[in-house]
């Protein structure tokens, strides 16, 4: 099984590189400075998008609305616990990206919040000078290393992705210490302390927490889009680009020439 996944990752990475290398010089310039990506198989992706919307309407949105009934302090605490667990994936990616200072900050946050913060429910680390600098994953690491996004597609349930991010998603499972602690129960990684269901509960809760935080935003986008699929694609690609650049503002992520065009034509 592991062999199969290794082969799949290699093929996908090659595919991503071929897709990138196959572009002309001008396209390359444009892609490196913007967040655009071609479609892999748009028909399939649009069908998956509709399927995901239906699942969201029936499953995730009602659960998220129910979750929103909980008191704010519970929701914030739950969100903090999920963020704290995700630090385990962020640390190796900080290191792989050469961000050793960030890795130290993330490790300190994890240690402080797991102990003094009661398994991450509270965030005392923030108050004593270790701010949350965001999650990192293997897809972002590949981006930092210069791998092009490859083409864009939509997966059932998991949603939008690119070839690079899909490879990252696979690595996010096998290269996640939390996965080793729970599902694969590695002897060096808190053996016996957690079980497989903890991993899936964490993933499910993270998804519901994210959905609950964005109920109004999603409704707003849906109401104001004339092509919702294209809107979500644009938001996804811009967001990934922003995360790879570790940028909070548009200043570094938007191609200025797009705007300059208006004045010159």
């Amino acid at each position, binding site marked *: 099984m592991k062999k199969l996944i290794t082969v799949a990752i290699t093929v996908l990475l090659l595919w991503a590189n071929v897709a990138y290398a196959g572009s002309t010089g001008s396209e390359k310039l444009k892609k490196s400075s913007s967040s655009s990506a071609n479609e892999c198989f748009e028909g399939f992706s649009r069908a998956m998008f509709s399927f995901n919307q239906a699942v969201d309407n029936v499953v995730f949105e009602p659960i998220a609305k129910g979750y929103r009934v909980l008191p704010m302090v519970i929701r914030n605490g739950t969100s903090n616990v999920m963020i704290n667990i995700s630090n385990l994936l962020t640390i190796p990616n900080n290191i792989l990206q050469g961000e050793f200072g960030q890795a130290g900050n993330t490790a300190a946050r994890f240690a402080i919040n797991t102990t003094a913060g009661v398994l991450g429910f509270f965030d005392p680390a923030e108050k004593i000078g270790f701010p949350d600098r965001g999650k990192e994953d293997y897809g972002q690491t590949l981006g930092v290393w210069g791998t092009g996004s490859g083409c864009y597609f939509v997966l059932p349930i998991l949603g939008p992705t690119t070839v690079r991010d899909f490879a990252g998603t696979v690595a996010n499972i096998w290269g996640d210490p939390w996965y080793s602690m729970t599902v694969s129960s590695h002897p060096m990684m808190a053996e016996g302390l957690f079980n497989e269901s903890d991993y899936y509960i964490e993933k499910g809760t993270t998804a519901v927490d994210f959905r609950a935080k964005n109920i109004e*935003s999603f409704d707003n986008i849906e109401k104001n889009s004339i092509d919702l699929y294209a809107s979500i694609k644009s*938001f996804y690609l811009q967001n990934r680009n922003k995360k790879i650049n570790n940028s909070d503002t548009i200043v570094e992520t*938007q191609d200025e020439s797009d705007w300059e065009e208006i004045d010159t034509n």
Partner: protein
Amino acid sequence: MKRNFFIFCAKFFLLFLFFNNAFADGSDPKQFIQEIVDQAKEILVNSNSDKYKSDKLTEIALATVDINGVGYYTLGSYRKDLTKEQKKEYTILFEKYFLKTFVSRLTDYSEPKIDVVSAVKKNEKYTIVSSILLATNKRAEVKIDWRVYTKDPDKPLIRDLIIEGLSLARTQKEEFSSIIESNDGDINALFSKLKEFINS
């Protein structure tokens, strides 16, 4: 004579102050956004009717957003292929579409509390003004950046809203492009979609 001279000086001074303030208002993008935010706060109070909110927000958009500029940006390179008549039709349709989405997006935020925090001048034409929509018990804090077009320093205009680093103008551009591309480059498909949206 002395008294007349004094009155003349006083009038001149007041006139100077007036023009100086008017210029300062127009040339400072941060203050420009602060004024818009303050107006929006007053409009979006729960006691105001939806009609009132919609009318007032439309007024603000017409006065402070470069709707034509955003429209041309949104159309991307396709605008070069438009005939004069198509350009005219697009301008009218885009303005209606833009105002409808603008009002709809903002009226979802009742009594918003926005802090305008800083401004970064990118070049002579653009300044990015940063603000924060404060958290409520329903949603987390949201960072909102405003792309202000300052080519005419006396009349700054908004060209984009960037929510948590995601550009609304760029998203709109990619949405329009997707519709045109999936209809073999036919601009009329976009016009139909816009009409459908405006009349919905």
